[in-house]
C-alpha cells in the first residue's frame, strides 16, 4: 500500500496542465457554463478533442491497436481530474472515450471496431446514450423500445427519455428489447444507431437545469442493418453492465468540487467571511467530503490498475461523489447570495450541475441498493 503518484503520472499531469492552459480559450469558462448539451460546448468539443487526440491524450488508456497508448488507469484518472475540474471541455465526448469505446472494443465486431473506434479516438464524433424510457427509469430492465429482426435489418419502435446530447449526436448507444416475448434482463440487445436514420424524432424537454439538457427520442419504424447490433442478440444486459461499471464512477466530480470550493473560499475571503467560524467550518467540511470522494475514486482506479473485476466500490465512490457535488453546489449559492440565482454565473452553473448529480447515471438509491446487496451482503427478503 502506498499513495504517491508515479513520476510518469506527475509528468503527464504537468504537460497536460500546460496544454490546457494554452489550448482553452479565454471565454472557455463562459462556454462551459452553458452546459454540456449546449451547441457551443458540443461544437467546442470537436475542435478540442481533436487537439487532445493529436497529443495522444484523448484515449491514452486505450490499447495501442485502437489508437491509444496503453497508458495506466492512473494516467487516465489524471486526465479525468484535470478536464472535469475545468468544466469538461471534452463535452459529450467523455462518454465516448470512457465507456462507449471500451464497450465496443470488448463486444464489437471487427467491422464495428473499424467503423467506430477511429472517429472516437480522433475526437470527431458525438454519441448519446439511449437507456431510460418513460416507464423504465431506475428500473431500467422494464424498457420496452423494440428492435425486431426483419430480414437483414432491425426495425426499431419506441421511445427514450432524458437523452443528453441527442441534439448533436451522430450515434446513439441504444438499449432495446430484441425479443418481444422476453422480460426483464432477458432478450435485450444493444444497437449502435446512426442518428441520421429515418424515423427518429428528437424533442427537447424544457427543464430548470438548463437549455437542451434533456431530450426525448421517438423511433417510428427505424430500419437499421443487422450490422448495427453490438454483441450477441439477447445479450444486451451483459454488454450494458460492462458499460455501466465504467460509467458510474466516470466523472471525477470531486475534482471540480475541489476547484469550485477553492474559488468559494477566495470569494469568502473577499467578503471578509473566511475568518467567520461558521463559514470556515462549512468550507472545511465540504473540503473533507471532496477528499473522501477522491480517495474512494482512487480506490476504484486502483482496482482497475490491478486488473480486478468491477466491484461495488464503484457504487461507493459514486455515492460519495454525488454527496460532494450537492454540498458544494449548495455552498456556492449560500456564499454567493442572491446574485448566484442569475443564469450563467459561477454559482448558478455549479448549483445546476449538482442538481442532477444524485439522479443522473442511476439514482443514489439504486447505488445504495447495490452497496447493500453486493458489499454488505444484506438479504433481499
Amino acid at each position, binding site marked *: 500500500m502506498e499513495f504517491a503518484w508515479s513520476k510518469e503520472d506527475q509528468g503527464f499531469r504537468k504537460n497536460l496542465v500546460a496544454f490546457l492552459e494554452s489550448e482553452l480559450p479565454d471565454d472557455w469558462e463562459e462556454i462551459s457554463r452553458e452546459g454540456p448539451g449546449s451547441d457551443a460546448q458540443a461544437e467546442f468539443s470537436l475542435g478540442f478533442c481533436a487537439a487532445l487526440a493529436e497529443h495522444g491524450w484523448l484515449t491514452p488508456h486505450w490499447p495501442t491497436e485502437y489508437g491509444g497508448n496503453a497508458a495506466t488507469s492512473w494516467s487516465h484518472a489524471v486526465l479525468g481530474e484535470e478536464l472535469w475540474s475545468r468544466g469538461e471541455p471534452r463535452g459529450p465526448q467523455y462518454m465516448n472515450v470512457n465507456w462507449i469505446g471500451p464497450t465496443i472494443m470488448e463486444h464489437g465486431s471487427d467491422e464495428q471496431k473499424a467503423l467506430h473506434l477511429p472517429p472516437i479516438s480522433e475526437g470527431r464524433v458525438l454519441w448519446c446514450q439511449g437507456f431510460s424510457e418513460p416507464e423504465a427509469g431506475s428500473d431500467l430492465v422494464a424498457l420496452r423500445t423494440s428492435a425486431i429482426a426483419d430480414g437483414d435489418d432491425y426495425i426499431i419502435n419506441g421511445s427514450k427519455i432524458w437523452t443528453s446530447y441527442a441534439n448533436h449526436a451522430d450515434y446513439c448507444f441504444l438499449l432495446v428489447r430484441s425479443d418481444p416475448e422476453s422480460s426483464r434482463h432477458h432478450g435485450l440487445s444493444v444497437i449502435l444507431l446512426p442518428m441520421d436514420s429515418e424515423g427518429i424524432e428528437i424533442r427537447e424537454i424544457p427543464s430548470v437545469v438548463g437549455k437542451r439538457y434533456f431530450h426525448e427520442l421517438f423511433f417510428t419504424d427505424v430500419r437499421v442493418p443487422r450490422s448495427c447490433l453490438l454483441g450477441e442478440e439477447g445479450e444486451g444486459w451483459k454488454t450494458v453492465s460492462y458499460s455501466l461499471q465504467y460509467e458510474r464512477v466516470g466523472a471525477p466530480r470531486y475534482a471540480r468540487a475541489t476547484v469550485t470550493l477553492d474559488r468559494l473560499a477566495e470569494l469568502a475571503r473577499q467578503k471578509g467571511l473566511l475568518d467567520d467560524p461558521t463559514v470556515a467550518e462549512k468550507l472545511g467540511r465540504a473540503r*473533507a467530503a471532496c477528499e473522501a470522494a477522491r480517495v474512494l475514486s482512487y480506490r476504484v482506479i486502483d482496482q482497475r490498475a490491478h486488473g480486478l473485476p468491477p466491484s461495488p466500490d464503484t457504487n461507493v465512490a459514486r455515492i460519495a461523489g454525488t454527496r460532494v457535488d450537492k454540498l458544494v453546489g449548495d455552498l456556492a449559492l449560500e456564499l454567493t447570495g442572491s446574485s448566484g440565482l442569475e443564469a450563467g454565473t459561477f454559482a448558478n452553473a455549479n448549483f445546476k450541475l449538482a442538481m442532477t448529480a444524485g439522479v443522473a447515471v442511476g439514482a443514489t438509491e439504486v447505488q445504495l441498493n447495490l452497496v447493500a446487496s453486493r458489499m454488505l451482503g444484506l438479504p433481499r427478503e
Partner: protein
Amino acid sequence: MDFELNPEQGALLDAAETLLRRSAGTARAEQLAALSDAGEQSADGYDHDLERVLNDAGFTGVALVDGMGPLEATLLTSAVARQAGCVSFGANAIVAAQLLGRTIDGPVALADTALPGPVRFAAQAVCLLVADGDQLRIIEPLATDLVDVDSNFGYPMATLPAELLAAGDIVEGVSAHRMRAWWQLAASAEAVGCMQAALSFTIEYLKNRRQFGRSIASFQAVQHRLANCAVMIESARWLCAETASRNAPGEAAAATATHTMEAATLLFDDTHQLSGAIGFTTEHALHHWTMRLQTLKLELGGAGAHARSLARLRWTDAED
C-alpha cells in the same frame, strides 16, 4: 499508487489480528469492566496485559522498524480498535513514535492546553504529551494520583490539573501542530476500527433479527442507512491510510479527522437506532465500539474544530 497491502503489510496485519483475537475482543473488554466494577485494585479499565503483549510482539514500535512506518502503525491502530482493545496504541505507535522517534513503555496520554476536560488514559499514563499553543511539551515519567471520572464512554479518563498541563519539558524542534496532526490521524484510525466493528456487528444482528416475518436487514429503509455508513467508513479508512503514508501533512490530517468524525456521528446514530433497545444494553456488544466513538469525536475539539483547522490550513495559513 497502490491500495493493496504488500506481502509484509499483509503478514503484519494477519499476525496482529491473530494476537488480538486471543488477547483482546469484547469478551476481554467485558472482563476488564467486571474487574473494575468489582473494585479490583489493579483493574483501572486499561488493558495493561494487552499493551504488554503488543509491545513484546513488536507491534507498538512498528513505525520505527526499517521498511515500515506510520502507515503500518495506522493499520494496526484500527485493528486494535476493531477488537475493542483498551490501550493507548495510537498515541504510542503513531504520535509518540513520530514525534519522539521512540515508543513509550506504558500508557501514553495526549492533551491540548486549549481543551480542558477529562483526558483519555490520564490517570494511567506514564507519559503525557501536551500541545500548548505552538509548543510541544512532554512529562515523563508521569506519576499522578489522578482518579478517573465516572464515565462509561469506553475509556478510562481523568481531568488533568492546570499545573500539570503547564509543566513538563519543551520538546525542541517539534511543533505542537505536528502533534495535533498525528493525533488527528491516530484518533481517526482508532475511530475507523470502532466503526468497522460496530457496523459488522450491527449487520450480523440485523440479518438474524426477524420482525414482521422477515429479517430486519432486508428492509430497504434499513439497507440504505447501512450502505451510507459503509460509504463513510470506506472513505475514512482510505483517508487514514493515505494521510499516514504521506506523513500526516496538516491539511490531510485535518481533512481525515473532519470526515472520520462526521462518519462517527452517523455510525453511532444509525447503529444504535437500527439495533433498537437491545443496542443500549451492556449485554449487547455494540457499546464497546460506539461509546468510544463519542470520546474520539471530542478529541481536539471534534469535527467542527477539525473542519475549521482544515479551512485555515488550506486557505489561510501555509502548511506548517
